[in-house]
């Protein structure tokens, strides 16, 4: 019975936090809002049950299927047409992984796994889920990814708007 009420509490606070995070457009808002709500709940009720391993496996399967289902033949056709650009982007991403891992491991000296996943620009939910699945310190990965994604949006959105405004001004 205790577990049932705990489950209801976790679900209600998670849905509430996730909805707020999404509504207020936090990066990966549904995940981040739910996470913050459950962390706050967990602070007040430290004896909440953890999620059992089979549920974690199923969650990974659903996340993988959701990501995979977004691939479509039209995207593949367009990427094939832009093969040099796709290759450059993948090369740049892998260089980003190497540099990110170097920066994080030099500054924080965490485990190698944590450094790779913290410094990798591969999606915050995915990197935190990978850390959890590989038995690494998800706190460090989440903290750095959270700051990285939030700051990136603060830098990139105005930058992109500036670039577009300049391009429009230069257009005939």
């Amino acid at each position: 019975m205790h577990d049932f009420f705990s489950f209801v509490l976790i679900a209600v606070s998670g849905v509430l936090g996730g909805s707020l995070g999404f509504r207020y457009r936090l990066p990966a808002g549904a995940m981040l809002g739910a996470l913050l709500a459950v962390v706050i709940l967990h602070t007040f009720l430290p004896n909440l049950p953890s999620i059992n391993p089979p549920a974690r496996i199923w969650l990974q399967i659903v996340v993988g299927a959701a990501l995979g289902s977004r691939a479509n033949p039209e995207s593949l056709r367009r990427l094939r047409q832009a093969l040099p650009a796709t290759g450059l982007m993948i090369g740049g991403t892998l260089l980003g992984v190497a540099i990110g891992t170097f920066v994080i491991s030099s500054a924080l000296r965490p485990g190698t796994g944590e450094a790779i996943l913290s410094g990798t620009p591969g999606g915050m939910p995915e990197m935190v889920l990978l850390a959890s699945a590989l038995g690494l310190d998800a706190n460090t990965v989440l903290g750095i990814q959270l700051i990285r994604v939030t700051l990136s949006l603060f830098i990139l959105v105005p930058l992109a708007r500036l670039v577009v405004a300049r391009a429009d001004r230069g257009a005939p």
Partner: protein
Amino acid sequence: MLGTLAVGAFGGWTAYWLHVPAGPLVGSLLAVSVLRLAGGPVATVPTPARRVVQMVLGMMLGLSVSLSSVLTGRLLLPAVVLTITIVVLSMGVAYVIMRATGWNWPTALLCAAPAGITEISLLADDMGYDATLVAAFHLVRVVTIVTLAPWLVIWLR
């Protein structure tokens, strides 16, 4: 939708039994992507369902993460240095893409920007650029990383 999940479950459990690092995630991702690209009967997981999955993920992580260790000050400086480095690098990649393909600078920049798929695709759409192309680029980035990162972690650990 159920068929998509069944394919994901098959790929995920197979990878798990084969001891692939983060097997359920990687196996499911690869199985569904391959079937979808081969023209198989794979439905796109709708946005509200993805949001529910993100919420469940947040709840699961919330039970194993502590707020004080996430928001600790020691992470701030390395994360800022990391962000600036990656943004500068992505601008370099965007410039090379622009020179190599003849695309305009905004499209190249949006394709190379290292932020969330959803946020950048919405931004591209909002600015009147090709959101499908931008989303496809970011999907390739995330799929490449999610597939390679577990192997890198195991290999270098």
